[in-house]
């Protein structure tokens, strides 16, 4: 749907900051999350997980466990059909088949009368493993002679296709022009190789679900998820059920960030319930979340950029190697596509290698793939600026992509807000603030595609003229408030006359997952369209009541009015007036929209970061941070700011402290919040935000998704700041204190 008014928009409600409608429940402890529901006769389900990084599963003996009093069902690979096609890898991740592919891989599951009995039963399951050599490092996995995970994985994207299997799933390449020619024209070239460790989305709520399958095969699933329709489809396939037999309800979700866009324990809970004939609740422990849900890739990133003395980039080249865990499909393609997306380049290339290793299968994490490549690219831009003797913001302005630029991943940009964010950074008081000893400042820009997708809503007019809006996208960031704003705006009624709920899969048509920064854009577009549909119908009812033609009725300020003096002299009818007699004028009044939303606008962001390093310990603190990002149109500015701040802080954590640490035995060493150190309140300053609004021509209100772009610049913004403060280029994240000390010491010795 195109922008309503390209010349400028004024809104009555959109852009204001009312209280969110679901806020009260969340501050009094009434809101129900994944683990908060129970059912009569409920059993507790627990999963047995491989203690080995790589092992053939020869035999699973469940006899003793099954005989334990209180155990009602046990499932293993024998309870799940072999699946080929799209869902093959997901099904093998949910329950191992011939091999355990990572420390934590699910091997069996038990449903028992209580947690203690279930845990005892797990101990009684005897698994005969043949331990195999393992590999957890991406570059090690690419070497000839590395232990091979899948005998049927042959590298795609290279000519000729290899005859021997390896851990290299695919080669991707993007770009245009001729980088060799471009480098030949450069006065200055910077080439660096970077390394980033795997991080976890770190949502505070572990995966949890309550499954109930009756004897007739009808199933109900309560689950914390970003996409209950997708969960329904995948679980139905894995369990051999018709989709219509499974009803999934999305609970409130305690964080997802992409990590809850797939399934882990849900098919297992359903299988246990089906076998036991009772409801089964499965909740992951925090340790299981780290070991066996979906962290990001770890990666190496090689970047080479050449520029003229005046700062104009002549060529940019990158090679990315990402491991996606035990199954193919890391986001290296998106990392490669987004790597140089901020720049207007004639010669650009990005090559990506997708590699498998003995680690949990990677799942999406907020702009998947992009933060890692941006870390490399934005660091090199910073170094290039230094070499040329130019301000890093000026270098970015000189090369920034704009409307009409051929992007590094192909399509030509329409109206975009990158330049506006860089100019705003330049003008921001943060950029001019003086720095003290051991302090450094970093700048970085970033990009994310943003998506649309399958979306539908049902907007129902209640008997008193209030509105019930049912959407199908779980609320992961406060979107219900935005939907209420948009519906109320369109209908001309008060914000608190609209109530938005997230419907279950039986109550509303299919909706794609809440991901890709798509919800405010897509569900918002559907809401606006449904409201306009309702308005048409309301006008139709008014026309009937007045005995005039529907074309002669207009909707203004929440009322139906005759279009002009000629149409008739009727006092306006409010929503409530028309709703009250709906039964008499044709029945219930509702607006609908079922759409595959297209036209999502890309979002750019520029961050400023100041750090201070303690030269004795390497301890590094962020002292000031500013996020400047293009939102197109901020529907509810407080929640837009919230996305900016949240993404930035996740990036700060990844840059300074967060990493998956594997031992030589291939086991995860830090599967808990003590040693997987996410930022805490005392680590941080206030996170300042600037909302830039360059309207997206593809949305009636001009809005762009904002949820993901904010995590793309921080890895480099922090790295550039640390590099400035430490006076040495940091090439590995996280930049934990020992690594900073080491880098400073090495530089000092040189």
């Amino acid at each position: 749907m195109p922008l309503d008014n390209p010349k400028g928009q004024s809104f009555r409600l959109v852009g204001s900051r009312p209280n969110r409608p679901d806020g009260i429940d969340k501050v009094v402890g009434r809101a129900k999350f994944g683990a908060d529901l129970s059912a009569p006769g409920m059993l507790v389900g627990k999963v047995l997980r491989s203690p080995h990084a790589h092992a053939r599963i020869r035999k699973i003996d469940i006899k003793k466990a099954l005989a334990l009093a209180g155990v009602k069902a046990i499932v293993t690979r024998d309870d799940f059909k072999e699946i080929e096609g799209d869902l093959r890898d997901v099904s093998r991740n949910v329950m191992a088949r011939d091999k355990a592919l990572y420390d934590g891989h699910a091997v069996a599951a038990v449903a028992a009368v209580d947690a203690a009995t279930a845990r005892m039963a797990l101990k009684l399951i005897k698994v005969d493993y043949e331990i195999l050599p393992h590999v957890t490092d991406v570059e090690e996995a690419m070497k000839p002679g590395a232990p091979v995970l899948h005998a049927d994985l042959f590298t795609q994207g290279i000519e000729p296709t290899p005859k021997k299997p390896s851990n290299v799933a695919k080669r991707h390449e993007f770009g245009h022009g001729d980088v060799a020619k471009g480098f030949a024209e450069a006065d200055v070239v910077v080439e660096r190789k970077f390394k980033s460790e795997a991080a976890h989305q770190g949502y505070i709520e572990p995966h949890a679900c309550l499954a109930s399958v009756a004897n007739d095969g009808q199933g109900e699933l309560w689950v914390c998820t970003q996409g209950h329709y997708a969960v329904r489809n995948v679980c139905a396939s894995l369990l051999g059920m018709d989709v219509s037999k499974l009803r999934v309800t999305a609970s409130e979700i305690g964080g997802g960030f992409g990590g809850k866009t797939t399934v882990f324990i849900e098919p297992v809970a359903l299988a246990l319930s089906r076998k036991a004939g009772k409801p089964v609740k499965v909740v992951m422990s925090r340790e299981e979340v780290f070991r066996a849900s979906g962290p990001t890739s770890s990666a190496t990133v090689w970047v080479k950029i050449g520029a003229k003395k005046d700062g104009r980039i002549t060529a940019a080249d990158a090679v990315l190697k990402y491991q996606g865990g035990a199954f193919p499909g890391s986001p290296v393609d998106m990392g490669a596509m987004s790597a140089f997306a901020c720049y207007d380049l004639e010669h650009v290339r990005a090559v990506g290698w997708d590699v498998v290793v003995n680690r949990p299968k990677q799942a999406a994490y907020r702009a998947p793939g992009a933060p890692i490549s941006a870390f490399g690219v934005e660091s090199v831009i910073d170094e290039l600026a230094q070499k040329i003797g130019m301000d890093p913001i000026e270098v970015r302005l000189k090369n920034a992509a704009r409307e009409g630029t051929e992007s590094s991943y192909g399509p030509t940009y329409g109206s975009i807000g990158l330049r506006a964010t860089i100019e705003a950074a330049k003008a921001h008081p943060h950029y001019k603030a003086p720095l003290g000893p051991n302090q450094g400042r970093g700048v970085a820009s970033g990009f994310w595609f943003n998506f649309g997708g399958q979306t539908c809503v049902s907007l129902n007019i209640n008997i008193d003229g209030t509105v019930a809006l049912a959407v199908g996208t779980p609320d992961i960031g406060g979107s219900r408030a935005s939907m209420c704003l948009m519906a109320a705006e369109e209908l001309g009624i008060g914000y608190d006359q609209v109530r938005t709920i997230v419907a279950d899969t039986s109550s509303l048509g299919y909706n794609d997952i809440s991901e890709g920064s798509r919800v405010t854009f897509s569900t918002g577009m559907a809401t606006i369209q449904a409201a306009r549909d309702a308005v048409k119908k309301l006008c139709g009812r008014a026309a009937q009541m007045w005995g005039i033609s529907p074309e002669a009725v207009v909707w203004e300020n929440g009322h139906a009015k005759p279009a002009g003096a000629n149409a008739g002299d009727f006092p306006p009818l409010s929503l409530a007036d028309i709703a009250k007699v709906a039964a008499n004028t044709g029945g219930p009044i509702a607006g609908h929209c079922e759409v595959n939303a297209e036209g999502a606008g890309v979002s750019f962001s520029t961050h400023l970061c100041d750090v201070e390093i303690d030269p004795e310990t390497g301890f590094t603190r962020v002292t000031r941070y500013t996020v400047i990002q293009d939102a197109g149109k901020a529907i509810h500015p407080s929640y837009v700011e919230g996305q900016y701040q949240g993404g930035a802080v996740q990036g700060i954590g990844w840059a300074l402290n967060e990493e998956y640490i594997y031992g030589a035995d291939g086991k995860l060493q830090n599967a808990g919040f003590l040693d997987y150190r996410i930022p805490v309140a005392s680590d941080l300053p206030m996170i300042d935000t600037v909302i830039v609004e360059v309207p997206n021509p593809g949305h009636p209100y001009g809005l762009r998704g904002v949820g993901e772009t904010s995590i793309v610049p921080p890895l480099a913004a922090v790295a550039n700041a640390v590099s400035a403060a430490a006076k040495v280029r940091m090439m590995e994240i996280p930049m934990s204190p020992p690594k900073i000390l080491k880098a400073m010491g090495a530089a000092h010795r040189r």
Partner: protein
Amino acid sequence: MSKIRVSTTINGDPVEYLCAAEETLLDVLRDRLGLTGSKEGCGTGDCGACSVTLDGRLVCSCLVLGAEAEGRQVRTVEGIAEGDQLHPLQRKFIEHAALQCGVCTPGFLVASKALLEKNPNPSEHEVRFWLAGNLCRCTGYDKIVRAVMSAAAEMREGR
């Protein structure tokens, strides 16, 4: 093994329950008493989502045994509001958009209330360090800190 009988007071009301020796207070609150406001984020005292007060002292209920509540006063998030009157902290959290997913919010409310009862005029620094035991992954803490300072200011005026 036989269960232990516990008599305690939760949010001002007398409560009795049976629990196993190894059951935590968090397990009891959530699974036996239906008080699911306190959340389990980690089970090891690292995230603070299970924060309650025990005789006025801020604790992680996942690190307290159900049996240890005998004869004590337990306060959870469900006991912060008084009837239909929200506590200033609860109102400010909503006004300042200090919650996104909301799963850490109960822990933050209990912890912030305990802070303001001890120190009605904390600096930003003091608020951040007091709340360092409560993890939030959505907000970056900015709006949480603002909400707590704002609630503190309102409560000081009210006195």
